[in-house]
């Protein structure tokens, strides 16, 4: 039985464990039908030309993990930003761990999707927001929607800001030979409210893990959202991240994606601008080696005038790694005075590494500023000589230049400890041992 069949036949078993009377279940039922029609995307589709899910579909994934897998804090501490105090929503093999988590209802809701999807007090919010920005026909999103039950639920009311950042952490213990996880997150940031979120998926063994995650983010007028995705997973862990963001006027949403690991990572990052004078920022640092594969698909849809979007993705590809950057910008006819910037710079450090980069601009307005630039290159020889002439050996000079190239994206990271952590991960990934503190 292939994975698609297995998933479809598992849906009935899934229904035994959820409230089928809840309106959300109509959405699930609709979604599984859509998935059944579409199935997994194949390389014949333009959007999946460079990323194949074929080999993953041959793995016999467990769809419903057994319960009660416990982890000790000391075993997972290093995967969180433990230098600072944070709210934590922690899942072990997809199951919420109250022991490792710190949630809150103190003026803001930082808790569980399973509560939001079942308790009557959340019903109204769920009616308004659940599955409203996520795609109804993209197959992996519909698959997640069909099985949506657990994940992080974050609701920040008007003018509020949580006292500390929120971490969403997923751990896979390897208790299953191979595990499919489908977390579903909902983040609602009301008018003039603010939140900072750090998300990380970590497999703790070499057993196969596939995570198909969907996150919906709603930023109301003047809301501020900073979202950091740290992707540094084991070489047997794959991630399909589908993030959908709906923004209203004067809001500011930044998503930073740091991709340093994993077997196959696909980031579908979609911004929908529904209002004026707002700013959407997408930044990424990708550093890959071995046979790792990362595919960044971004979309910014400018639907109203006077808005900005900024994209800056840097990639360093070594060994047999492969990368994809596909950045789509749509500017509607009405969206005059749009400023849309996109930049994707790549360095190939191995002859066997590959990057496919493609800007895709669809501009229907005539008074806009849109720029895009893709580069694929090697390190600058003049810069290398400059560093060497100061006594820095060639190997270290190369590492230092790559570090500088990637590090440059981090200026917009607003949590110093996150910046420091990413700096360290970059240095480690590049094998840089520089004579200074990161």
């Amino acid at each position, binding site marked *: 039985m292939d994975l698609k069949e297995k998933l479809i036949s598992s849906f009935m078993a899934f229904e035994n464990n959820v409230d089928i009377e809840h309106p959300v279940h109509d959405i699930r039922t609709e979604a599984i039908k859509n998935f059944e029609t579409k199935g997994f995307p194949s390389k014949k589709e333009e959007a999946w030309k460079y990323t194949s899910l074929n080999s993953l579909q041959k793995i016999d994934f467990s769809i419903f993990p057994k319960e009660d897998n416990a982890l000790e804090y000391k075993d997972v501490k290093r995967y969180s930003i433990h230098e600072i105090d944070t709210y934590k929503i922690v899942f072990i093999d997809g199951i919420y761990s109250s022991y490792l988590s710190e949630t809150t209802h103190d003026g803001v809701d930082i808790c569980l999707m399973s509560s939001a999807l079942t308790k009557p007090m959340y019903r109204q919010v769920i009616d308004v927001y659940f599955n409203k920005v996520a795609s109804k026909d993209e197959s992996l999103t519909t698959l997640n929607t069909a099985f949506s039950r657990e994940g992080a639920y974050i609701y920040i009311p008007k003018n509020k800001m949580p006292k500390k950042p929120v971490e969403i952490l997923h751990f896979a213990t390897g208790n299953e030979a191979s595990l499919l996880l489908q977390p579903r997150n909902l983040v609602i940031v009301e008018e003039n409210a603010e939140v900072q979120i750090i998300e990380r998926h970590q497999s703790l063994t070499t057993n196969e893990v596939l995570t198909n995650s969907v996150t919906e983010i709603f930023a109301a007028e003047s809301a501020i959202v900073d979202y950091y995705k740290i992707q540094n997973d084991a070489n047997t862990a794959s991630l399909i991240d589908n993030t959908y963001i709906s923004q209203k006027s004067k809001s500011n949403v930044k998503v930073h994606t740091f991709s340093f690991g994993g077997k196959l990572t696909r980031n579908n990052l979609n911004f929908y601008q529904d209002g004026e004078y707002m700013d959407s920022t997408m930044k990424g640092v990708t550093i890959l080696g071995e046979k790792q594969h990362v595919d960044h698909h971004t979309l910014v849809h400018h639907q109203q005038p006077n808005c900005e979007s900024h994209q800056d993705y840097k990639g360093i590809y070594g060994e047999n790694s492969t990368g994809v950057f596909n950045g789509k910008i749509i500017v509607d006819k009405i969206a005059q005075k749009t400023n849309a910037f996109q930049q994707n710079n790549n360095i190939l450090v191995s002859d066997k590494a590959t990057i496919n980069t493609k800007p895709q601009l669809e501009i229907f307005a005539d008074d806009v500023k849109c720029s895009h630039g893709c580069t694929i290159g090697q390190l600058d020889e003049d810069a290398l000589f400059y560093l060497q002439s100061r006594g820095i*050996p060639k190997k270290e000079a190369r590492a*230092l230049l790559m570090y500088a190239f990637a590090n*440059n994206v981090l200026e917009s990271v607003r949590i110093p400890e996150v910046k420091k952590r990413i700096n360290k991960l970059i240095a480690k990934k590049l094998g840089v041992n520089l004579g200074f503190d990161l």
Partner: protein
Amino acid sequence: MLEIKDLHASVEDKEILKGINLEVKAGEVHAIMGPNGSGKSTLASVIAGKEEFEVTKGSVALDGEDLEEVAPEERAHKGVFLSFQYPVEIPGVSVTNFMKTAINESRKAKGLEDMPAKDMLKLIREKSELLEIDRKFLSRSLNEGFSGGEKKRNEIFQMAMLEPKVAILDETDSGLDIDALRIVANGVNKLKSKDNAVIVITHYQRLLDYIVPDFVHVLHNGKIVKSGGKELAMELEEKGYDWIKQEATV
């Protein structure tokens, strides 16, 4: 200290240096002047070991050791320093971190431990004061967005930190206003000693009012065509390079 013998160098099969002879002794200041395209910057790059240039004949030796097979970083460890005409911008690496890395790599090459952080800070403070460099400047990305003057001052700051035996200043005066020129020249003069040497590459006599050379050499078409004392620089300033070119063709 630095001995250049019959040096020929090419880039992409085009010969640029066509037999240079130059001996620089400890304690001396040499000025190399000459029109555009005469090979001044190439000479500087070849001494510092830039791989793009191929030495086809002759040699460069430091303290009697032939540098032919010596990598640029090793030349730096042995005491060669080049102040770049166009210092490269390196976003993402601060001046301070860059200097720490450079100093500690040099120490490592000499079998020494990293310089203790406290000593490093003290050294940085001392040398930045010498060049009248603002502390804030040191945490900025190396050369990124620096003005022409700031870049050159930063080069001499690096020279002060690394304390080379032979410093080559490649058009350090270009892009400097008179105040910056004085600060830079003053820095170089303070670093001068009987144990080190400076080679000043310049178009104009201006810098040589501040850094007074013992010898002036005129480079033309890849060769030193005339050498003299500091008065030669004045003569060049007055008469230009045409008479040298004519003399050379004759």
